[in-house]
C-alpha cells in the first residue's frame, strides 16, 4: 500500500463512487419512505418505522453477513439475479453500494420523516387550490420546505457511507483497485500497525468529507421561515 497521494487516489475515487451512489439511492428511497410514514396512516405504522431503523442498530459486520446471505450467488436475490440476468453482485463495487446504502438508509429516512412532518399542510392546500397535482405540490412546496432537514440527513448518510466498511467488506470483498475503499484501506493500515499510512489515509478521508459537506452546504436554501 503506497503512502503517497497517488496510492490513495484509487481507493478515494472508488469510495466517492460508492458513497455517491449509495446517497443517490437513499435520496429516493429515504425520501419516499419518510413521506409515506409522515403522511399515510395505517396500522403498524410505528412498527414499520422502527423496523426501517434496524439497519442502524445492527453491527455492520453482522448486517454484512445477512446481506451476503441475501445477495450472494446462493442467496434468494443474488441467485435470482445470476440466473435470470447473469448478474453477479457479490464482490463487485455495486455490492459495496448496496451495503453502504442499507447501512445509511435510516439516516435519510428519519430525517425526511421529521422534516415532512413540520411542513404546514395549509401551504399544500393552497398549492392544490391553485391547480397543482399531487406530484407538483410535492416538488414545488413540500420538498423545498422540508429540504433543509432532508439535506442534513443526506449529508450524514454520505458521511456514513464514506466511513462504512464492515458490511461493505463482507459483500464486496477487499479487492485492491476494485472494491478496496478508503475505509477498508484505513482499517488495514491500523490493523497492520502502519500508523503513518493510517493517519495519511484518515486525513484524506476527512478532507474529502469536509470538502463534500462544505459544498453541499451551498445546496441548503437560505433560512426558510415556517410562516408565510
Amino acid at each position: 500500500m503506497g503512502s503517497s497521494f497517488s496510492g490513495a487516489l484509487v481507493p478515494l475515487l472508488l469510495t466517492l463512487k460508492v458513497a455517491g451512489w449509495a446517497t443517490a439511492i437513499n435520496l429516493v428511497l429515504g425520501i419516499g419512505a419518510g413521506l409515506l410514514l409522515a403522511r399515510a396512516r395505517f396500522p403498524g405504522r410505528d412498527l414499520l418505522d422502527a423496523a426501517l431503523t434496524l439497519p442502524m442498530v445492527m453491527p455492520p459486520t453482522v448486517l454484512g453477513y445477512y446481506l451476503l446471505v441475501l445477495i450472494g450467488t446462493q442467496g434468494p436475490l443474488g441467485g435470482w439475479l445470476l440466473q435470470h440476468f447473469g448478474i453477479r453482485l457479490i464482490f463487485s463495487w455495486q455490492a459495496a453500494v448496496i451495503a453502504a446504502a442499507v447501512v445509511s438508509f435510516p439516516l435519510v429516512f428519519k430525517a425526511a420523516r421529521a422534516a415532512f412532518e413540520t411542513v404546514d399542510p395549509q401551504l399544500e392546500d393552497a398549492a392544490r387550490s391553485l391547480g397543482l397535482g399531487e406530484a407538483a405540490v410535492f416538488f414545488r412546496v413540500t420538498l423545498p420546505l422540508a429540504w433543509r432537514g432532508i439535506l442534513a440527513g443526506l449529508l450524514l448518510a454520505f458521511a456514513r457511507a464514506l466511513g462504512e466498511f464492515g458490511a461493505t467488506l463482507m459483500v464486496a470483498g477487499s479487492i485492491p483497485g476494485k472494491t478496496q475503499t478508503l475505509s477498508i484501506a484505513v482499517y488495514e493500515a491500523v490493523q497492520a500497525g502502519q500508523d503513518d499510512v493510517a493517519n495519511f489515509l484518515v486525513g484524506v478521508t476527512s478532507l474529502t468529507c469536509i470538502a463534500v459537506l462544505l459544498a453541499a452546504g451551498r445546496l441548503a436554501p437560505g433560512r426558510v421561515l415556517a410562516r408565510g
Partner: protein
Amino acid sequence: AELTVSAAASLNNAFQELAPAFEAAHPGTKLQYNFAASGALLQQIAKGAPVDVFVSADQATMDQAQAQGLVKREQRRNVMSNSLVLIVPAASTQPPRSLGDLAQPAYQRVAIGLPASVPVGRYTQQVLQAAGLWTAIEPRMIGANNVRQALDYVARGEVDAGFVYATDAALVPGKVKVALTVPTTEPILYPAAPMAGSAQPELAQRFVQWLLSPPAQAVLARHGFGQPR
C-alpha cells in the same frame, strides 16, 4: 482475584471451555477474557489496558509487544500450534489436489486473509510465494478481513476455494471440505506471555504454564489445535 487474558479471536471457543478447569485448579481466581484480532489486542495493551496475559495468534505481533517491553520475554511460551488448510465448498466436485491446481480456470475466486493485517493471510502469501504461485493467484484473491470471513465465503459457496486454519475448517464440517493441509514455511505457533505490568505476575505466569499442561492441551486438541513444537 480476576485475571484478564487478552486472546486472539480464533481462540474464543477453546478458551471458553478452558476457563472452568483453570478456575477449579486455582480457587478464588476468575478468568476474564478479552477477545479481538491480535493486532487490536496489542494496541490496547500498548495504550495501557489492564491486561495480565496476552495470547497472540502469530509471532510477529508478540515480537512487537516484546520489542515495546510490554511482556516478560523470559516467560513467553508457544502454547499451541495450528495448520493452514485449503478448503473448498462441500458441494465442490473436484477439489484441488495440489496448490498448483489453483492456477486452473476452475478457481476464479480464492478467499485469502488480507496479508497486511490478517496473520493467516501472511502465512498463505508466504506459502504461495515459496511455491511460485503468488503472481498467478493474487488477481483471483478475494480479500478477507479475518479468517472467519474467508471461511464464510467458502461455506456459502461464494468463492471456489479459500485458505483458513484447520481449527476454523473444523467449525463448519458439513459446509466445507479440507482439500489440502498446506505445510507452512514457518510453523504456526501461538505465543503466550504474562504482561510486564500485570498486577498479579505470579498468577499470570501460572496461567501461561498451565496452558501447556496435559488437561489444557487435551481441550485445545479437541478444538483442532496441535501441540507446540
